[in-house]
């Protein structure tokens, strides 16, 4: 699967899509492959104030638990409740329908410090 060019990425396999100051966050295709079939997703509470690197949630498969951290700081304004009943959405569409939360970014410039698609793909290749 291709990594969308307009997204940014972290070395912990989170992605961010910035629209104005709204940052949509999820985990990458690589992460969902590593985890396997996802059975449970823990999402943050709407209204939570997260700093960059703070715990945002977890993604659980049959054999592993992945921690998801906020790639940039902000307040949680929306979470993808659909994941409660259909956690497998993350496996099927990790970069689109499998989004986890939307943050109102405190400092949108943090976005630029993250890896771009090419750098993330190179990071994966170095494995």
């Amino acid at each position, binding site marked *: 699967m291709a990594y969308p060019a307009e997204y940014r990425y972290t070395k912990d396999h989170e992605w961010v899509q910035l629209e104005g100051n709204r940052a949509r966050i999820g985990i990458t295709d690589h992460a969902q492959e590593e985890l*396997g*079939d996802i*059975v*449970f997703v823990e999402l943050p509470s709407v209204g939570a104030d997260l700093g960059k690197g703070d715990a945002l949630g977890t993604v659980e*498969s*049959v*054999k592993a638990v992945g921690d998801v951290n906020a790639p940039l700081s902000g307040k949680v304004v929306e979470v993808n409740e659909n994941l409660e009943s259909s*956690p*497998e959405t993350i496996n099927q569409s990790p970069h689109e329908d499998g989004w986890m939360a939307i943050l109102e970014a405190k400092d949108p410039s943090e976005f630029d410090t993250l890896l771009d698609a090419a750098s993330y793909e190179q990071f994966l290749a170095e494995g």
Partner: protein
Amino acid sequence: MNTIFELNQSHRSEGTGLVPELDVPRRGVEDAIGASHVRSRPLRIPSLAEPTVARHYTKLSKLNFGVDDGFYPLGSCTMKYNPKVNEDVARLPGFSCLHPLSDPALVQGALRLIYESQEWLGAIAGLPAVALQPAAGAHGELTGMFLFRRHFEQRGETQRVRILLPDSAHGTNPASAAVAGFSVTQVPSLADGTVDVDALRAELDDTVAGVMLTVPNTLGIFEPRILEITQAVHDAGGLCYFDGANLNSFFGRARPGDMGADVFHFNQHKSLSTPHGGGGPGSGPVAVSSVLEDYLPVPRVVHSAGTYSLQWDVPASIGSVQSFFGNFLVAVKAFAYILQLGDEGLRAVSENAVLNANYLQERLKATYDLPHDGLCKHEFVLSGKGIADGISTLDIAKRLIDHGFHPPTIYFPLIVKEALMIEPTETESKETLDRFAEAMEAVAEEARNTPELLHEAPHHAPVRRLDQTRATREPVLTYPFEDS
């Protein structure tokens, strides 16, 4: 396979036939306890005749694979042969018919066995005091962590809230530390698989309660700087916990107390040969240094002038971790094992266990990736990476079933990708090891030529590969009576 709830039988009888009918005047349940307490909720347990029960469980047993069925090279589990004489002596009515709250004067035999077990386990550990109360290895770990807590509490050093452990540690180690109220700091391993001693030293400050180590470690490697590590931790005011899961590798050769351990737990259902039971009961006694003796759980079994008794008045004790004396009948089996083997036999255990492991490692490293080559102890870790594209360790394990073997431990330790952890134990013959090596080589060959054989394995087991995802996503954890 059906469960008892699906057996279409309804057996009726007057009485159970197991014990005599009522021989005193009947008062009536409702009269005795009042209608409000009497059960109205149905009890959906089928009534089956004994032959039906016997057949059902006999059939189920044949879907299992035990040590008596074949080679069981599960790393970290020490699946050695379970001696049958141990089973027999544990069934003696003089042991099994004892109520734990009997007057100690009437159970001197049992108390003697507990006391002498304490002595022998203490001698193996090289530590002065032992408690048999923990019911499993992880329970021993928890007990050890409780002892650490009490120790620092007594000394007014409650700021010591951290436990250090290597990234190769068994999952129960950090879990036990956490349940006991500690936080866990992971110390990395070096490329050679040993603990990064410099990184460990860097963590030592007055917030550290101690370290939890497995010796030899979970890669089967004996930490060469073990004395330096325990000295450093003690110098920093901390304590050392040694996980005894790998005791099978050094019986008769080394003692944890001589390496600086303050607590050492035994897995009697591993190195001391008691059976695994499909998941217990085990037994996890702890041996401790004099520093921690005062905190051991109550009741303590003590001996004076030829009489064994229970000591309850131990002011600084952590209390109790199990109802009574721990898993006594399991301790009986381990006691019989040590009695039969003696020092000579125990020494032969580690010699043969380590030889078997090194032989198998040498043979298999020609085919499989061995991240840490060199002298191993009783177990070693291979990686399933690089056997063939798209083949995982899981695939290899499932195909081994078709070759008649229980697979090794997979995906542990976490520091090796696609890990295959192999522990042959001393009770396996060279012939068995050779046959296993041949099977491993055959599977590697199949992986390259006919990978679908692995992906769809097992083919020759009572069931095909089971859908774990479905079981967790749509939990069905009890028989669905409503659907039947």
